[in-house]
């Protein structure tokens, strides 16, 4: 039956968490009530990327974008838009109070500057139907590779495309595949690293949720190129929806004969097994991941013998990130030339020469439009934050951008015109990493943020080697002292010493990159550290132990009428004053926990 309209309801984890499934059910019920169920189809799609304003629905073919929907809005919306054909302005995206709402999805600047390769099918297909993926040109890349290209041609194509690892290392994928191909032996493995342990990063999750077949086709092509017959997807158990969709996709692929024996009639056979990660951040590292697949505890080993020579079960193994695999079908289908047009640098003779293609970033933090953006390499940070991200929330001033998750670094406001690509970011001490991009504004304290990231890596360290286990703990203790006012200037120097030592001598990349947040924050925000150390003050007032909490007598008495809320909330009974009169804080007893500041609804508590 031909539908005249399609309601694309986003079913990414973000929107599902905001009840988008409930909205879908109300929609179906409403359409049946209005008798439109034969004309209007409801399709659940993967994540659209604009998670900040979920639950999202896009009405096709007119391309109208609705956001922040509630199931109570549905009857009105069906009536207005689907029956009377009038798009409802109330639910559209409003860039800011002054500007009018923007109906068309393509006009919203969050989407305008994005170039979709890995996420090209997001919001357009139902990820649980293989036919829709095929309709979008799916598996034609595999067909082309299997029937028209030899394995070496496939590898060469990827090499020429200048594709580099999207997991964070940025190692040219073509070279990795080529070295693996050279190693003798017929048993070899291909692994997709969907562990994604960084806090605040959800690119891989969205790719698998919106378009699982892209990853499967990518692995099939890679396996054909490298001559592997067995693939593994190591996916985090904390991604239930992605896991479920991947399992369905694999089942459908098997049913269609795209996985298993003699695919497309050729003698190429390939199978994929899912391994569920138990949520250890260290298992994102390749050798630890392989140890985990082998049933051993996730502990990295020295990579002096590369995993492409001796990896899983001591056989040659090629491990790539989800996004890397997702790019491969497009490269094969549209050719390396097309891929090199996007991105920076020149890769014709040196694959390290530039960063080609696009990168998916999870834009979070103090930015207006938080969500998932896929931008061409070479775009500047400023464009991402201001054009796509819609600038800083509540008009605050930006302080720093933290890229690459806990292994990345802080980039100060002065360097926002830095084009985003592997080499530029590493030059300033940060790293592309998996793609986490957290925006910090003036209210964020750099010491506190560095402490947060270091606490994460220190807790997630596998504890095998001395520098990472002991070094990061000592660094964390020093940062802890600084944030409670016990830091000294030698501490800063010691902190730098320890950081360099940990970077240089750690056994694996986790230890090698854990100090990056500290190093970059020391490099660009030395002054903030000094205020913490010298004046024992935290400019952003995040390190509570350094604040002094006093009550503004006047506001408390008149506006708050001495409501006693703060007195009740104070754990140390440091607040005195009868009801109806102004209260005051006994500085001796106050342990600066900030409970009163949070409790007072009239902002009577002042913090210096």
């Amino acid at each position, binding site marked *: 039956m031909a539908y005249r309209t399609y309601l694309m309801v986003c079913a990414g984890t973000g929107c599902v968490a905001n009840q988008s499934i409930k909205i879908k059910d109300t929609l179906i019920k409403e359409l049946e009530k209005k008798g439109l169920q034969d004309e209007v189809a409801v399709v659940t799609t993967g994540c659209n990327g604009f998670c900040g304003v979920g639950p999202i629905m896009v009405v096709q073919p007119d391309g109208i974008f609705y956001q922040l929907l509630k199931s109570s809005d549905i009857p009105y919306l069906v009536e207005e838009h689907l029956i009377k054909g009038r798009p409802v302005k109330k639910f559209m995206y409003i860039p800011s109070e002054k500007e009018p709402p923007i109906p068309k999805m393509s006009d919203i600047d969050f989407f305008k500057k994005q170039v979709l390769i890995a996420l090209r099918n997001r919001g357009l297909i139902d990820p649980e139907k293989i036919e829709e993926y095929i309709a979008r040109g799916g598996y034609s890349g595999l067909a082309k590779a299997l029937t028209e290209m030899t394995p070496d041609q496939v590898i060469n194509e990827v090499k020429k495309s200048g594709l580099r690892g999207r997991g964070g290392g940025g190692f040219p994928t073509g070279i990795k595949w080529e070295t693996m191909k050279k190693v003798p032996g017929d048993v070899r493995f291909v692994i997709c690293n969907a562990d994604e342990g960084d806090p605040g990063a959800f690119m891989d999750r969205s790719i698998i949720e919106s378009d699982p077949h892209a990853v499967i086709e990518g692995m099939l092509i890679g396996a054909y190129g490298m001559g592997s017959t067995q693939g593994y997807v190591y996916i985090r158990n904390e991604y239930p929806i992605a896991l479920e969709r991947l399992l369905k996709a694999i089942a459908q692929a098997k049913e269609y004969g795209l996985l298993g024996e003699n695919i497309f009639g050729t003698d190429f056979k390939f199978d994929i097994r899912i391994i569920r990660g138990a949520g*250890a951040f260290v298992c994102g590292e390749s050798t630890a991941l392989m140890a985990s697949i082998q049933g051993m505890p996730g502990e990295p080993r020295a990579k002096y013998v590369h995993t492409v020579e001796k990896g899983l079960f001591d056989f040659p193994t090629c491990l790539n990130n989800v996004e890397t695999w997702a790019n491969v079908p497009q490269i094969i289908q549209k050719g390396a030339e097309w891929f090199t047009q996007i991105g920076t640098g020149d890769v014709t003779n040196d694959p390290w020469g530039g960063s080609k293609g696009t990168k998916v970033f999870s834009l979070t933090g103090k930015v207006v439009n938080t969500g998932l953006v896929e931008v061409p390499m070479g775009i500047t940070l400023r464009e991402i934050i201001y054009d796509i991200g819609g600038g800083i929330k509540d008009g605050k001033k930006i302080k720093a951008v933290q890229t690459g998750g806990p292994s990345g670094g802080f980039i100060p406001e002065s360097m926002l015109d830095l084009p985003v690509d592997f080499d530029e970011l590493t030059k300033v001490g940060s790293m592309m990493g998996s793609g986490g991009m957290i925006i910090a504004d003036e209210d964020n304290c750099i010491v506190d943020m560095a402490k947060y990231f270091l606490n994460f890596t220190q*807790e997630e*360290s596998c*504890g095998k080697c001395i520098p990472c286990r*002991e070094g990061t703990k000592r660094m964390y203790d020093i940062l802890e002292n600084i944030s409670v006012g016990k830091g000294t200037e030698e501490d800063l120097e010691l902190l730098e010493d320890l950081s360099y*030592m940990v970077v240089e001598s750690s056994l694996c990349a986790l230890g090698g990159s854990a100090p990056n947040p500290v190093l970059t924050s020391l490099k660009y925000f030395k002054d903030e550290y000094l205020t913490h150390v010298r004046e024992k003050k935290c400019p952003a007032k995040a390190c509570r132990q350094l604040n002094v909490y006093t009550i503004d007598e006047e506001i408390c008495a008149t506006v708050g009428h001495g409501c006693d809320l703060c007195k009740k909330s104070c754990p140390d009974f440091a607040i005195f004053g009868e009801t109806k009169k102004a209260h005051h804080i006994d500085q001796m007893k106050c342990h600066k926990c900030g409970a009163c500041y949070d409790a007072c609804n009239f902002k009577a508590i002042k913090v210096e």
Partner: protein
Amino acid sequence: MERSIRMVTVNIDGKKIEVAEDTTILKAAEAAGIWIPSMCYSDLLEPYGVCRLCSVEVIRGKRSRIVTACNYPVREGLTVNTNSDKVKWIRKILMELMYSRWPNVPVVKEMAERLEVTKPRFVSLERDESENACILCGNCVNICRDVVKASVLSFEGIGIERKVVLPFNEQSETCISCGACAYVCPTGHIKIKSLETERGALQDFYLGPKSAINIPTLQAVPRVPVIDKNSCIKMQTGGCGICSEFCEPGAINYEMKDEEVDIEVGQILVTTGFNLFDPQQIPQYGYGRLDNVYNSLDFEFMLNSTGPTGGTIQCKDGSEPRAVGIIHCVGSRDENYKKYCSRVCCMYALKFAHLVKDRTKAEVYQFYIDMRAFGKGYEEFYKRLLDEGVNMIRGKVAEITEESYNGNKPHLLVKCEDTLIGKFREIPVDMVILCPAIEPAQDAAKIKKILSISQSPDKFFLERHPKLDPISTMTDGIFIAGCAQGPKDIPDSVAQASAAAARILSLISLGEVSVDPIKANVIEEFCSGCRICNNLCPYTAISFLEDKKISDINEMLCKGCGTCVAACPASAITGKGFTDEQILAELEGLLTV
């Protein structure tokens, strides 16, 4: 396909060295006499690379990199700088980290001095001041998993919480107590505890576990190493196997197993020997309870030059005893224990006395009931001892207790009644040697049942005739000799053994054995095939002939007991020598007088 060993030249600290490819930098440097610090490296194990102390700077083209020497395989044209400033700086901070967490571990302190690290700039919150703290080097976990293949020890917890644990922190059954982890632990954090408590000298001078492959004693015949099955790792879990690597002639075969071999023999000579009576059954003597109370076997251990003390007579605390008491008839000639005299104790007790006098300046007291020096030259030896000043006290020892005068070292007090002077005496000694009774071997009853020979009341095997034939038993072809027949010393045992051997050889030289004629046989006509007798015979001599449908007796197996003769309802079986007619005739003769 095995890659041929290619030699590569490597430049370490300016020295050009030729080594096989894939050897690690650490080994190559060692070959060139260059020292690289390492804490978690052990030759027995795959390099684990966790302490990072062996970090060195590797220069390839213009890029230099810090790598760990213990597991970095060398390649052609590699230049290594083991002492650049950067390397020294990294090692210094690494050492500070370790030193602040484990300040009193000797291995760490020593390495810290060597790397000139005196005082760490910070204090580790996880400080562990004990000398044998675990420094998480992982050697024990790795050796247990890779070499011993028992995988008992493992790491638990990640990051700073990481520690080595036994499964569920309990004594694990899969641990084969091979001691490999204790051996390989650099700080002595793991100790081996002997669970069962041996008594006497074996316990006091316990020298710790022997290696699984050892020569039992230097006087062993044949003097070849043997493998102790329960403590050999290869036999337990299939790991290790180092001894076969080092045995050039390749004489070690792990597959050899104890086999049960059936040998056809004509005669059996039972020389199962004796056991020493366990003196613990006499609590008053305090054996196993008090220190320095040994039985004669323990003392023999001490006297033996290859024994635990190398021949010197010493108390448990190592000092030389000032006085030694030797007690005869412990358990022998005693109504409550063994009524018989064990015959040999008096003489070896005198030997002990002589050796104590000879090797130490100790006073010797012999507590005896009757001095039985009956053998050739024995009495003269006894006289010699009296001249050497051994104090002979005739009386059975009542009790041994532990005393200490005004607080100095406690010593033993032997209480007995000296029947020659009619007084009750208490003699302070430092050491007591008990001469326990000789009792039959533990499994004597089992041997008796198997060979169907009989035992005398004192449980030694019963000889056919005490005077005329002490070496054969009631059963033809089975002979006994030595202490299996009763307590006796070496000369008597040798005499008996030779006699038994001679008797057996005479039978062998005869070539045939005269079988006594008393046999049973079946009269075919009478036998109705009722098969009552078939399973009656303990020697399964009676079989059933299917074709003739009658029972038949195998002459060689039949011992002539006649039970089947009496049982046969048709009296179809006659017993030669004891036929019914003969017995009835005897009856006739006896009763008609």
